[in-house]
């Protein structure tokens, strides 16, 4: 994770950033601390930190730093010039943690666009931020099959804004973010009883931008319906207020990068 010391919205690279409400940095810091504390206390997670850097407001969204698997990491190569200066900082942090870092030759936004399902398959997004050819690098590097899912909505610009693999083969996702092909791919690979869809309203509240550690699922202010559905599947739901980060188009998952 990376503390939101310099978090603000001063450029707009996704539709969420075009809102009028300014970021309350004090509140953002409190919300981020709450997430970090909850991850540690509720799920026993260990948290490593990337040092915040002035002028890099989105460094707080560490999910985009890289796709990490085993002892290697494919570093992000951001599509938008505004975020490219983050790359050397993420590289240095990953190397300091002992990862071998691989640079992709094309735009690729890390774990924002590549999620491991059941440890055996990568569900990867393309079109908005990541180029589909980056998925080949994931396959080649990790010898894992990849399912490439086109993201056709600017609001759901990373696959982790509309899809979240959970333990036990469960999959939380928003069907409205995918086309008919993407939905068929999901349906062909995830059994019906394991699929948990969210509504448009829940998706816009970043329900799919959730983090799972152990049986705990951390997410922004879940609806009663979704909380119930997750509980029925045996998960412990940890609802948090991450509203300041929603103004930049991110939530719990975007604020974290799973290292192992």
């Amino acid at each position, binding site marked *: 994770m990376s503390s939101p010391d310099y978090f603000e919205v001063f450029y707009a690279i996704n539709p969420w950033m075009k809102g009028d409400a300014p970021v309350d940095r004090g509140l953002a810091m409190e919300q981020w601390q709450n997430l970090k504390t909850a991850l540690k206390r509720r799920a026993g997670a260990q948290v490593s930190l990337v040092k915040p850097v002035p002028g890099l407001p989105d460094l707080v969204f560490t999910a985009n730093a890289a796709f990490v698997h085993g002892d290697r990491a494919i570093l992000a190569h951001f599509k938008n010039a505004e975020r490219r200066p983050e790359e050397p900082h993420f590289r240095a942090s990953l190397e300091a943690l002992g990862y071998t870092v691989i640079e992709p030759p094309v735009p690729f936004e890390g774990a924002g666009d590549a999620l491991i399902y059941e440890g055996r398959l990568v569900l990867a997004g393309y079109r908005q931020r990541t180029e589909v050819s980056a998925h*080949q690098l994931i396959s080649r590097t990790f010898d894992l*099959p*990849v399912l*490439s899912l086109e993201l056709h909505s600017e609001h759901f610009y990373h696959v982790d804004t509309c899809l979240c693999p959970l333990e036990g083969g469960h999959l939380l996702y928003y069907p409205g973010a995918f086309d008919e*092909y993407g939905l068929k791919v999901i349906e*062909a690979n995830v059994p019906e009883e394991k699929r948990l869809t969210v509504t448009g309203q829940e998706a816009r509240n970043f329900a799919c931008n959730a983090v799972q550690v152990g049986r705990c699922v951390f997410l922004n202010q879940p609806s009663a319906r979704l909380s119930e559905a997750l509980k029925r599947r045996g998960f412990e739901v940890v609802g948090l207020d991450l509203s300041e980060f929603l103004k930049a188009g991110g939530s719990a998952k975007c604020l974290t990068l799973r290292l192992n």
Partner: protein
Amino acid sequence: MTSALLELHGHLIDSLILAKVIDRIQLSGYNYVLADLRVGARKHDLSTAQIQVWTPSSEDLEALIQELKVHGVHLVANEEAEFATVVQAGLAPEAAYTRHLPSTEVLYKGQWTEVMGSKVQWVIALRSAGPELVRASELLEGDRVLIGQRGLRTGADQQP
């Protein structure tokens, strides 16, 4: 009429990307042929497909390529054509690009009669004036013959 060879590489089958690309071409109403498809042997191997497509104009072709680019489609036709040397007179090299005329018969004196020479196999060989259509049977040892479809554009009469 313009034609081009398009190529895409990646997770084409399980991700339904090839199906999507072909559907887009069909929806545009263009003719196409799946010229080559190499499917990865294992689930995580990559696949490669080549699609020959015909559009009414080069602008249509450019628009189609632009639309499909996001799925990893690129034009192969800008690459130089490849030629292989004939090692035995009258025998086209393996993978030579060959053409036959459509089966042609003429109703002559009440009978459909096959036109002599309509079964000729044509290849493209490099001659002093440039690439030239040559009967495969008339190839000479040392002739350079076009192989594959790289660097090749064909007109409307060659449509499937």
